[in-house]
């Protein structure tokens, strides 16, 4: 991270995405940091494959995908830092926070070798592909919601990121099928990776009031129409969704369980993408698990500290250094 990106100033007059939209709400840094840290930590894990990929093309592909995530992380960290008092730079946030201040999902800090580290430090490509696929499908739904959401700065970042994430999803889903419906050993490893990883996705749907404020579509559309709109719609054009008004920030009295409705809507979008690909990959959906990790509240496993030690050591040894 060499230089701070200029503020993505809202430009209501130039964006075709914002025809007359009222975007009054600004998401607090706590919410922005979740997506920033997800992008940063996932980028670091993908980047660990550089020079170690199973084939040259994949080595390059994962490095490029890591770079996309790093770019997204920079924009999000810069934005979060500007909202803080006193303001922080992207470097302050990336290099000088300790693990407990990170807001990424636990799923993304798990080592590339998988949860049980049975394959040692080399990394398990099956585990990497499963995580990459499940996460990019999830982020397609998240970016789409942020793009249509009430925060203009997040909508701008989402508008760029969603285009990249579509390519991530296509890359990941191709490999899900190639390896899942590949040889018997590759199938077994993919199924094992899926079973290891799936419990960690529970956290992705354990939502709170911030998600409700900034990931909801129009409350009524979320409760009634998400199944009709999102089923089978791989990368819906945001323009097809009604512009949210501000009423979703204070949930309507008649929507009794808005968090459950939001989680259900998000999961429906995710499943609509995943299910046809998993079916073709001949992988079977693991049975449900009750595991609930809390990385996004700063309660991380042991792996994040090790990851951060590598990510932050140079910047901390030479604070303020320029290169």
């Amino acid at each position, binding site marked *: 991270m060499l230089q701070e990106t200029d503020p*993505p100033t809202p430009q209501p007059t*130039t*964006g075709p995405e914002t025809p007359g939209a009222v975007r009054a709400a600004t998401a607090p840094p706590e919410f922005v940091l979740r997506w920033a840290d997800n992008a940063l930590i996932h980028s670091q894990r993908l980047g660990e494959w550089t020079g170690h990929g199973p084939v040259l093309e994949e080595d390059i592909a994962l490095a490029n995908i890591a770079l996309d995530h*790093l770019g*997204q992380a*920079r924009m999000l960290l810069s934005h979060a830092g500007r909202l803080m008092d006193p303001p922080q730079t992207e470097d302050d946030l990336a290099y000088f926070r300790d693990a407990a201040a990170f807001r990424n999902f636990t799923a993304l800090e798990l080592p590339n070798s998988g949860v049980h580290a049975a394959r040692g430090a080399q990394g398990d490509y099956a585990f990497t592909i499963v995580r990459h696929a499940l996460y990019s499908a999830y982020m397609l739904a998240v970016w789409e919601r942020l793009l249509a959401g009430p925060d203009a700065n997040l909508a701008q970042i989402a508008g760029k990121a969603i*285009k990249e994430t579509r*390519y991530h999803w*296509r890359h990941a889903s191709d490999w899900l099928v190639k390896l899942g419906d590949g040889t018997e050993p590759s199938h077994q490893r993919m199924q094992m990776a899926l079973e290891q990883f799936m419990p960690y996705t529970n956290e992705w749907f354990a939502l709170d009031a911030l998600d409700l404020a900034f990931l909801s579509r129009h409350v009524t559309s979320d409760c009634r129409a998400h199944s009709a709109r999102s089923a089978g719609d791989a990368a819906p054009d945001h323009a097809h969704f009604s512009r949210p008004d501000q009423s979703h920030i204070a949930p309507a009295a008649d929507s009794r369980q808005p968090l459950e409705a939001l989680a259900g809507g998000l999961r429906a979008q995710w499943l609509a993408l995943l299910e046809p690909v998993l079916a073709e990959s001949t992988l079977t959906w693991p049975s449900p698990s009750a595991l609930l990790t809390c990385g996004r509240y700063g309660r991380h496993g042991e792996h994040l500290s090790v990851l951060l030690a590598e990510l932050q050591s140079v910047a901390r040894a030479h604070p303020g250094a320029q290169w």
Partner: protein
Amino acid sequence: MSSDAPVAHSTLAAVDTALLEAVCAIPDPEIPVITLGDLGVVRGLSRRDAHVEVQITPTYCGCPATEMIRSEVLQTLHALGETSAQVRIVLSPAWSSTWISEDGRQKLRAYGIAPPGPSCGGTSIRWMDRRARSAGHDESGLRCPRCDSGEVERLSEFGSTPCKALYRCLACREPFDFFKTL
């Protein structure tokens, strides 16, 4: 905003039109056969008294060329006597490969890079099952930049830079880069 014309010249004074043209003529750091203007990343120029601001949009969030582009634009402005100049990165509307000019597409093809398709909706990069892929629905209209055959296959979704994918021509057997539709 029209997808073909991200830069508005009409309201600029002659001196600023010349500045904008100079900025648009800077070669892209990654693919020097095309200019920043061809690539469609120059989004505008504005002046307040002696202060000039150029707006640039990045192609990909993590594109490492963005910093290079920023410094080259500043150098160009300084060389033309603008002492108070700044480059602002704008994100919205997000860059689209449809903004690459027709001239730029021809230069890319001549350089051996297949230019992106005409449209960039989400549908064009949706996951497809094997039947759809084998029926050649992968990138409609994609042709080998060397022999112009339409019989091509994708080797890797990601090539030498984030904006390119690696393909192979099944007719002349040469691999080639494809500037991805975004």
